[in-house]
């Protein structure tokens, strides 16, 4: 079974630039999550999709972050404009069912904002 795929693996941008990350979940997983993991911290949920609908985006900085999952499969997370404090690893995860349970994580995208 293929795991969660993410690209790119690494990205370096200057502040005020924009960036986009892509995620392809495990086949058949209806729930998709985007997390932000700052160095030395645990992952923090940014947004959760159930199929192509948003379940929870309470911690997504909506003035600069956006995410979509148009066909209920793969997803993109965008930051525009980026700030220095956005430097982090952005993890995508998917699960067969919603919420607490077995979430399978991708390798993450390491973003550095200079």
């Amino acid at each position, binding site marked *: 079974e293929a795991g969660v795929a993410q690209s790119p693996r690494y990205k370096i941008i200057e502040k005020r630039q924009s960036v986009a990350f892509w995620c392809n979940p495990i086949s058949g997983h209806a729930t998709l999550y985007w997390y932000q993991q700052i160095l030395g*911290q*645990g992952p923090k949920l940014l947004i959760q999709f159930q199929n192509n609908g948003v379940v929870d985006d309470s911690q997504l900085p909506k003035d600069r972050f956006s995410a979509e999952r148009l066909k209920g499969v793969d997803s993109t997370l965008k930051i525009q404009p980026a700030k220095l404090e956005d430097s982090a690893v952005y993890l995508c995860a998917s699960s067969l069912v919603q*919420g*607490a*349970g*077995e*979430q399978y994580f*991708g*390798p*993450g995208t390491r973003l550095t904002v200079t």
Partner: protein
Amino acid sequence: QKEVEQDPGPLSVPEGAIVSLNCTYSNSAFQYFMWYRQYSRKGPELLMYTYSSGNKEDGRFTAQVDKSSKYISLFIRDSQPSDSATYLCAMGRNNFNKIYFGSGTKLNVKP
């Protein structure tokens, strides 16, 4: 106060030692408790998943939950250098809600 507290370590032990990793939490509504292992530059992978109080064993790993004390533990027996990673505890209120992660404990098992 954070929802989940975890000592960041690092914790350094010799190969073969028993390792104890712990988390405390403040929300008594948490019912699901998980331990994830995260190798450097990789995503977290689920190690143990338990519901409510009690113990769960899987090979060299044992997870314990004490809801009365709001305290969970992960024990690793006969630790190996390949166990060197960051261990994240996580918990959730019910099966349809988001999970909250601790900050992770970095473990180093020396050969």
